[in-house]
């Protein structure tokens, strides 16, 4: 590498890190996000307030209610005395679900007649409502089985249910490793677009142009610090994930790095591409946002790609993050072999080549 290029890379790294407040801005948000995703990002329902409206005075309803009291998924159980109390409680989100036991519940159970229990759910939180409904269903179904059991053979055949790779289905185990992808993307992209647009806005870009560096060299000088920052950040998060959260890296670390480097290159290409289109920092940041938001949402980070409509799924496959998240989750949790990882690396490599070429072409045209 020619010494003038090395000088440019050192200059870029210095200008990215010389200001102590900016240094903090590099270090604090990623760490904050790691802990946020570890402790706050959950779709589970473990502490939901529910209500019970029992119109029945018999023993069976009391037995059923005591099962709700013992369940750990509910924080508090409010007992309603009249039907009128139900609506305000749901309206004000005082309870997320209400179980309504009909008047003839105990009588019908004693007579072995089918009876149904009404479950009122707050659809404003559709996912939680669905999960709560399945909890309540399970409790009621268990109770029904126990009522029948003991006098006749139950016609039940339970299903054995296992989850591989993450047996307790903990959100943390999948969210935290994914940050190797998302945080690397946001930070590298921000650094890339801001470093070019800042020089444009402050006028120092002209100085770079009159230096003996070729446009391509300027681009490389901007790209290499991005790569260094991306790989360093990815390494730091991998260390936090394994050391602090004890989530083991079941696959090979070399496979992870192969993915990380190709992924960072693709993101650098996108960053340079955006930089070549904008002229102020505000525009650069908005450009980065307009790219980052869809990239995050169409990556399978918060919700799986398969849930998207069919016409949107090919778009998600054009997103480097989609592929890298499969690699990260695969390498951390599933011991994904290189052959399967390679299936995801080559699309990112194609994207990297494409965005870097397009960016360098735009750069040269703009500078020339």
């Amino acid at each position: 590498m020619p010494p003038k290029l090395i000088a440019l890379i050192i200059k870029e790294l210095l200008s990215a890190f010389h200001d102590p407040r900016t240094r903090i801005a590099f270090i604090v948000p990623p760490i904050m996000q790691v802990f946020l995703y570890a402790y706050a990002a959950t779709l589970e329902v473990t502490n939901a307030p529910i209500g019970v409206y029992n119109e029945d005075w018999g023993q069976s309803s009391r037995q059923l209610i005591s099962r709700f009291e013992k369940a750990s998924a509910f924080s508090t159980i409010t007992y309603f005395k009249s039907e009128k109390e139900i609506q305000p409680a749901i309206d004000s989100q005082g309870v997320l679900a209400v179980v309504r036991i009909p008047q003839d519940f105990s009588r019908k159970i004693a007579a072995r007649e089918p009876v149904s229990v009404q479950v009122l759910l707050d659809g404003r939180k559709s996912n939680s409502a669905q999960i709560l409904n399945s909890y309540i269903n399970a409790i009621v179904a268990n109770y029904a089985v126990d009522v029948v059991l003991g006098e006749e053979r139950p016609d039940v055949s339970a299903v054995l249910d296992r989850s591989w790779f993450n047996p307790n289905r903990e959100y943390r185990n999948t969210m935290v490793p994914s940050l190797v992808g998302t945080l690397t993307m946001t930070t590298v992209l921000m650094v890339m677009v801001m470093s070019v647009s800042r020089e444009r806005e402050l006028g120092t870009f002209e100085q770079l142009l009159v230096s003996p560096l070729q446009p391509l060299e300027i681009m490389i000088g901007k790209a290499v610090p991005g790569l260094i920052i991306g790989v360093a950040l990815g390494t730091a998060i991998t260390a936090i994930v394994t050391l602090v959260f004890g989530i083991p890296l079941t696959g090979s670390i070399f496979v992870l790095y192969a993915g990380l480097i190709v992924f960072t290159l693709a993101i650098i290409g996108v960053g340079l591409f955006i930089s070549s289109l904008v002229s102020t920092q505000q525009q650069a940041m908005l450009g980065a946002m307009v790219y980052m938001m869809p990239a995050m949402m169409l990556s399978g980070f918060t919700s799986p790609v398969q849930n998207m409509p069919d016409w949107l799924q090919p778009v998600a496959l054009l997103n480097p993050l989609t592929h890298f998240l499969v690699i990260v989750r695969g390498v951390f949790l599933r011991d994904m072999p290189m052959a399967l990882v390679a299936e995801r690396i080559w699309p990112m490599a194609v994207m990297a080549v494409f965005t870097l070429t397009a960016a360098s072409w735009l750069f040269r045209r703009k500078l020339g």
Partner: protein
Amino acid sequence: MSDLETLERTDLVPQPPSDRKFEAPESRARPDIAVSDKGGSMRRMRALIRKEMLQIIRDPSSLVVAVVLPLLLLFLFGFGVSFDVTKMRVGVVIENPNPETEMFLASLANTPFFQVRVAHDRRAFLDDLTASRIEGVVILAGDFTQRIGRGDTVGVQIITDGTDPNTASLVNAYVQGAWQTWLAQRALSSGLQAKALISTEPRVWFNPELESRRFLVPGSIALILMMIGSLLTALVVAREWERGTIEALLATPASVPEFLVGKVVPNFFLGLLAMAISVGFSIFVFDMPLRGSIFSLLAATTAFLLVALSAGLLISTVARTQFLASQIAMMASFLPGLFFSGFIFELSSMPAPLRAFSALVPARYFVKSLQTIFLAGDIASVLVPSILILSFMSVVVMALTWRNSKMRLD
């Protein structure tokens, strides 16, 4: 000398006319000063607002923020983010094919939720599960038929991909459901009691189809406004510092509150524009109901925008470069808005300290209000406390901003 100090001094001692060349000469008596300064203040604020408006209009990126970003985000949240699993790719392993297993396979394949592939060896789907090409594997053991009705658990196995816990739970629930239905049908055909002794009858209020889009869209509107509010205002003051134009502003007689009002008002209208676009898009494209009134929508939006805007200004007073301002805005407003607003993640399941922290996040009250206004209607027990809390927060943040804004060049 800043105008704030000038104003303080004029309150104490009448100033010599040379110091106050912007005022009419007869403004020496104190009541007159107050009156004429009020007029000047209005004029200055108008000028500052106009300057800010022009800056917004001239920079196309601001319009991107107000128009394109809301549309893009709503589009993404509406189509891209969904917790409704509609097609689960499931591999079914039938170790010993017979009429019973065929019946069960048909009952799985006939539901709209599954996309079924069949194999006769469980090893066939190992790679697919590892590469996440399928969401789960259902294994019907070789002695499946014999085990039915014995209370055994090994006849049917479900293996799900735990790396996506939500989908894993849903796949499990749906397969279990299909299994129960199949058992019931089988019992029916053999003349046994078909219906379970106790069944549950779910009734979902406000969102009967349980579409996740209906709860995500109001939440994403809150996120959009938070971004526009905090991010843009955080940038506009930092930009003045970075470009050096703050000196020009300091040289004018504008005081701190005037300066702040000049920044808030235009961005407030930009926020309202974004809100109008978002609401229109949600109603006409996503077919969201708007069961509450426009008035309550406007009240909640105003209260929330004021908090978001003043938070942005507070950030600007700390950060003097746009990069730093944007990072702080992301950290202090966007991330808490994403995590602690109940927009995607379930607040009640978080650890107690985080739940307590979420009470300080303005987006939480706005998300709650929006979900209620869109899906439930004008419910005072939700809206009134939320709007009051938001208003109180905006007053506190504005007071903090005023105290921290040092209009000096040190």
